[in-house]
């Protein structure tokens, strides 16, 4: 069994050796590739939620955007529902089936458009209606679905609170009846009580509409709650992928271990008894990524071998993949 296929469940999204480099100017006439995503492979099964966690700059948002071809991937393949995304036409079709919810509910909504125009824009672009009547019916149905008062359709985004704006963003993502939604930190800008409302809505929508999510977030407790499986990224590489409960309770990779132990637990006794695995130093710049394993500069298990080659992404137990040379000794 490989990372990208599963005997039992059909994958909806297959990502194969995806690379996304950006050229960064480092001198007057010199540029250098910034390897935002460097050879990442995984698959998302129909109807599942794959959580993607990692620290800022690890490439998790770029993975989401590259899958939707908002960037043209430098290398690698994205297979959606069995068909490889190649031509412009493929991309256009992909974007009807795969949409995105953005992090910031303030900057992701055009302040000069009314709510009904924001939600209706995808319908306009992909010409999904035959007359105005059908368009406005669909918009009102979407607003109803995400718990917005349909009387507010002619209001502007600034008239809504953060949680309501995020609902507008979700309604827009649902407009084309997608199968797959990339949720890029959709609740991290929201207050705790509102966050819980929106998380519940994601779960309900998934049940009602048979959606598949790639749920990108840095809040591990949120990801643990919503995901079936969780993938961990560090400096453009995927370092671990497993069932949500498994990775949370039995992480293998030294980075995942310290990440899980750093989560502040909302329980005084647990939080104070918690043995944190402290990481020294900061995440290196992706422009000067270390050779071999990207985590070796902060890893207490690192050996010379780790500097020489990038460890393979191997399955250590059923469905649990880890990229670490010393995984057997941990």
């Amino acid at each position, binding site marked *: 069994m490989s990372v990208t296929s599963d005997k039992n469940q059909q994958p909806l999204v297959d990502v194969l050796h995806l690379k996304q480099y950006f050229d960064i100017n480092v001198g007057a006439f010199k540029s250098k590739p910034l390897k935002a995503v460097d050879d990442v492979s995984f698959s998302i099964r129909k109807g599942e939620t794959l959580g993607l966690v990692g620290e800022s700059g690890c490439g998790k948002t770029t993975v989401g955007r590259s899958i939707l071809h908002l960037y043209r991937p430098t290398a690698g393949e994205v297979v959606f529902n069995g068909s490889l995304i190649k031509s412009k036409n493929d991309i256009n079709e992909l974007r009807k089936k795969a949409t995105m919810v953005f992090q910031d509910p303030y900057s992701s909504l055009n302040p000069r458009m009314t709510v009904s125009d924001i939600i209706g824009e995808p319908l306009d672009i992909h010409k999904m209606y035959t007359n105005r009547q059908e368009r406005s019916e669909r918009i009102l149905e979407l607003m109803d679905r995400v718990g917005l008062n349909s009387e507010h359709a002619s209001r502007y985004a600034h008239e809504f609170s953060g949680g309501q704006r995020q609902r507008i963003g979700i309604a827009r993502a649902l407009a084309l009846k997608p199968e797959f939604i990339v949720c890029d930190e959709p609740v991290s800008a929201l207050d705790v009580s509102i966050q819980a409302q929106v998380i519940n809505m994601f779960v309900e929508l998934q049940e009602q509409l048979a959606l598949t999510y790639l749920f990108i977030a840095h809040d591990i407790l949120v990801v643990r709650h919503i995901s079936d499986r969780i993938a961990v990224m560090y400096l453009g590489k995927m370092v671990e992928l497993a069932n949500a409960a498994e990775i949370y309770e039995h992480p293998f990779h030294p980075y995942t271990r310290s990440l899980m132990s750093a989560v*502040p637990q909302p329980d005084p006794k647990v939080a104070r008894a918690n043995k944190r695995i402290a990481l020294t130093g900061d995440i290196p710049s992706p422009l000067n990524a270390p050779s071999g394993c990207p985590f070796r500069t902060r890893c207490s298990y690192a050996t010379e071998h780790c500097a020489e080659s990038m460890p393979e992404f191997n399955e250590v137990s059923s469905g649990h993949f880890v990229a670490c040379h010393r995984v057997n000794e941990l």
Partner: protein
Amino acid sequence: MSTEPLLKVTDLHTSFFTPAGEVRAVNGVSFNLERGKVLGIVGESGSGKSVTAYSLMQILASTGKIVSGSIKLGGQELVNAGESVMKTVRGNKISIIFQDPMTSLNPTYTIGHQLIEAIRLHTDRNKKQAWDRSVEMLRLVNVNEPEKRMKQYPYEFSGGMRQRVMIAMALACEPDILIADEPTTALDVTIQAQILELMKSIQEELGMAIIMITHDLGVVAQMCDEVIVMYAGSICEQGTAEEIFYNPKHEYTKGLMRSIPTADTAGSKLKPITGTPIDLLNMPEGCPFAPRCDNAMKVCIKERCERMVINEDHMASCWMNVKDGVENGAIVIDVAKGGGAE
């Protein structure tokens, strides 16, 4: 013990006077802070937690004003004390670190320049002594090669390193109280763990008190001895961390605890608080949380609940406790506060 607490805040009211009307951002907040303790102030955006802290230092925006109440620092009254007194308090006795380490430092000066400026402003040290003190402080907050780092600009520092610099600057004059306003919200979780551990160890070393303002209950659980839960400018519950987490006595706190995802909630639904936070311009007569409360009673809508003593470590302002407690006589009304319930 009869000794005066380090900080005693009594019935503090802070308002912002906007064209739309008076916004009562802090509405009758009282608490004590003892030396060497960590007090957490938790609440959602707009709950008044930051304004409470800014009121302590009197660094409110120009439209904001402390309307009434008292802030006593080591027995000295700070409300209406005047700018000259506040100048001796800020930085010397109370320091603050802000949420965003990216914007708290001036990008056009070196880190060393900014540290030295802060130290020389508050102490008699000369340039050389201030330099040495800065290096010493950077070393205290675990910045590697402090002599070299002193000559660098903020852009050369990562987010976690900048927050360390802010902590170094805040602690350089050995304040009695450090206010940390969401100090780790902008940071990644592994960096957050480093900063929290650093704050805890420095606090134990220097024995100062910390007021930790955050919306993250995980951070509170890890750091705080005592906790204040705020909603719409008022304290709804106050007590030791154990009491607040294991024995919440206000419907809002209970709702918050239910809203956090944990390992146990996976695969099930969260039970969020319904509705949205209240508009501070249109405050209801009764309990500000009543419009969102599932268990709201008639009295909740009509009358605001005074603080009630749950036990010696715990106070809450929720009528539910009266309902549950009055029959069995378990609850005593806080007479010192006037007591609103008969």
